[in-house]
């Protein structure tokens, strides 16, 4: 461990003395302060601060993503070029220790810069808050500078219900419509509430949530009627077991988009089971409402913001660790410019792959590129889709950890999430390139032919 620490310390020291740390810090701090000055948000103080937090942390991680790739790609390759690595490799240190020390050094640099940027971002947010009218500050703290535990509704087994309906209604002797096309229509129908209709969601609150603690509803919807009638109706909270009414409130003329409502959790039953219901107003007062699938949740409690920022940045740091490992892997094999190019291209392609994933159906003219009215998708279409799907399946688990987005939305990034991130991002997604990189580095001759 001492040797790994020595290499890590050397990496940090070199980054500091070469001016890399200072340059990156200056660039990031300038961007953060500039953003705090120019961001306008959605016109509300809370919205402004929330947008600033999202953009500031997003820009920080974006710049550090590129910086990590470039620094990692040049780490081993440049030391091989100028032969400083030879003098280290002849010491009693394993190649794996050398590689890990470099990785740890890069992680240390990222941790330092993330900490500095987080401090600057929070300081700017605090300044923005102090410049807000005193009457709006409470709303900002409630809505933005807080962390709440997201509680998802019980799984509704949409697919099972859809399968039952499909067997009963749609599938005829000739199987006219595939189930894969029926399922999204069924789900959309389930989430559409006509005038006079009711939609329920069942929740089971976590044990640590107590009656009387803050509880918010967050959902989103779109118009499902030609008239584009806004939301008018009532929301109710019922006890899950007895269905007794715990809270109710009417809403009127809410435009499509995100809806946030404060609920009263005073009557929370001991088993923590709740039923949330939306009743659409009847008749001509209202139009049909379509809730966005899987976008309705309760936000429970009100916890300090700073620890949530810390946990979110831990997850962001783990993501940067993947990039450091990929960069070092390339650096162990290729020269500095080639390693930089390959690792950057890899990262850009994997980040962009989700935009190339789309479903095709032979009769969907809008999506299939056709040639001479050929109803079948061409082989290059099928091949490129297969590749895009495969790449997306690799990237999706990493993208699923959107801790920065969660944190800036005021949602808690819990320690279980951090634990899952460690197992997924560190053990699997960093571990595999690390193993490959160390293996390739061990096989590599560190001295070339020279006269």
């Amino acid at each position: 461990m001492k040797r790994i620490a020595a290499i890590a310390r050397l990496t940090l020291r070199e980054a500091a003395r070469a001016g890399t740390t200072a340059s990156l810090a200056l660039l990031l701090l300038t961007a953060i302060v500039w953003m705090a000055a120019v961001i306008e948000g959605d016109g509300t103080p809370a919205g402004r601060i929330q947008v600033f937090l999202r953009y500031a942390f997003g820009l920080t991680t974006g710049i550090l993503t590129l910086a990590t790739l470039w620094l990692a790609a040049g780490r081993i390759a440049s030391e091989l070029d100028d032969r400083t690595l030879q003098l280290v490799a002849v010491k009693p240190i394993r190649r794996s220790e050398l590689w890990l020390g470099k990785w740890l050094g890069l992680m240390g640099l990222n941790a330092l810069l993330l900490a500095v940027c987080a401090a600057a971002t929070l300081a700017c947010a605090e300044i923005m808050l102090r410049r807000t009218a005193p009457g709006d500050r409470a709303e900002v703290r409630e809505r933005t500078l807080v962390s709440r535990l997201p509680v998802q509704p019980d799984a509704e087994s949409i697919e099972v219900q859809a399968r039952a309906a499909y067997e009963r209604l749609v599938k005829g002797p000739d199987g006219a419509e595939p189930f894969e096309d029926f399922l999204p229509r069924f789900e959309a129908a389930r989430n559409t509430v006509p005038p006079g209709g009711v939609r329920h969601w069942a929740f089971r609150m976590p044990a640590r949530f107590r009656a009387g603690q803050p509880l918010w509803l967050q959902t989103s919807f779109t118009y499902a009627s030609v008239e584009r009638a806004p939301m008018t109706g009532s929301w109710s909270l019922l006890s899950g077991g007895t269905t007794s009414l715990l809270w109710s409130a009417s809403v009127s003329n809410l435009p499509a988009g995100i809806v946030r409502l404060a609920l009263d959790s005073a009557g929370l039953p001991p088993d923590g089971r709740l039923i949330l219901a939306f009743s659409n107003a009847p008749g001509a007062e209202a139009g049909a409402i379509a809730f966005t699938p899987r976008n309705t949740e309760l936000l429970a409690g009100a916890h300090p913001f700073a620890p949530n920022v810390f946990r979110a940045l831990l997850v962001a740091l783990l993501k940067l660790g993947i990039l450091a490992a990929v960069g070092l892997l390339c650096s162990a094999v290729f020269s500095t410019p080639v390693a930089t190019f390959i690792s950057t291209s890899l990262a850009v392609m994997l980040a962009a792959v989700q935009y190339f994933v789309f479903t095709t159906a032979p009769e969907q003219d809008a999506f299939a590129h056709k040639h001479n009215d050929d109803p079948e998708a061409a082989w290059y279409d099928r091949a490129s889709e297969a590749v895009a799907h495969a790449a997306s399946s690799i990237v999706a688990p990493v993208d699923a950890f959107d801790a920065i987005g969660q944190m800036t939305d005021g949602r808690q990034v819990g320690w279980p999430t951090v634990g899952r991130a460690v197992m997924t991002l560190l053990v699997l997604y960093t571990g595999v390139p690390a193993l490959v990189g160390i293996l390739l580095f061990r096989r590599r001759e560190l001295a070339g032919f020279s006269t």
Partner: protein
Amino acid sequence: MIAPSQDTRRLNVVSTHAPLDRNGSAPCACRDQGETTEMPANPATGWAVEVDGLGKIFTDFWHRPKVRALDNVTFRVPAGGSVFGLLGPNGSGKSTTIKILLGLLRPTSGSARVLAAPPDDVLAKQRIGYLPEESYLYRYLTPRETLSFYGRLFSLPPDECRRRTDELLDMVGLTHAADRSVGEFSKGMARRVGLAQALVNNPSLLILDEPTSGLDPIACRQVKDLIAALARSGKTILMSSHLLADVEDVCTELVILHNGRARAAGLTRKLLTQSDRTRLTFPSLPADTLKRLLAAFRAEAGADPQVDHPSLNLEQFFLEVVEAASRSDTSPTGATLGGKPAPFLVS
């Protein structure tokens, strides 16, 4: 080696059993291209380095042979107090051999063992020190930080590491520049830092690749004295050089490489001694006395002796001049080696 002499009246007389050629030289019977003299078998202290049939071929991208750097090289370096020279012109395979011994390259054929372990054995490297041909140091670190870093790689305790750092910086004459970045150093100063880092772990085996490269004559002398002192304290030194005078001065044994092959090997004294000739050195004599002596010599030995005055080599003369100047000049400039090995190296 002839000691420097102030007496210009000394004469050398060389006689030989074999007829002299027109240059006054006799053919040496102990060197023959391609012939290797025998090394002592299994020294009591064991072998520090064992190289058997070592071959190295550098290939191109298609794994086709590009350069045959080594071809069936065999030699042994006894452990404990020997200074072994790896000699050869540029491109003969000296650096390649060293890099294979250090695990930086893999041999194509044959084998090498260092301190009874394979070259890439991490534990064996604990007892090896290496000075490369060029000082490949981290330019943003100071000498103190450099030695401290390498000391940590050897798992030296912090106090011990600090002590050794101070002693080594004093030994190489860089105490005054201990906190300047290595990137600002001249080649010679960087070389001194390189020498210091090679010794920080008090190695049993010291591998020096062109140790006097880039050093002034005084520093060269001091490095050679240091090598001798380290050998006397029981360390094994393997040094590679194409500067013959340096190797002749310090190496007890050597191997000569050319075009990747070992051409000669053995004890230095044995390889260089012309056993078929004898030299007498005595103070200058009056002309008629000399004439009588020579006549008697001719009568006894039946050979015409060669008579001339001995001369210093340039290095000796240079050192004498500089030493005399140093005694009169009290304000030295530039870096100089301390002259004495660090105490921890010879204790």
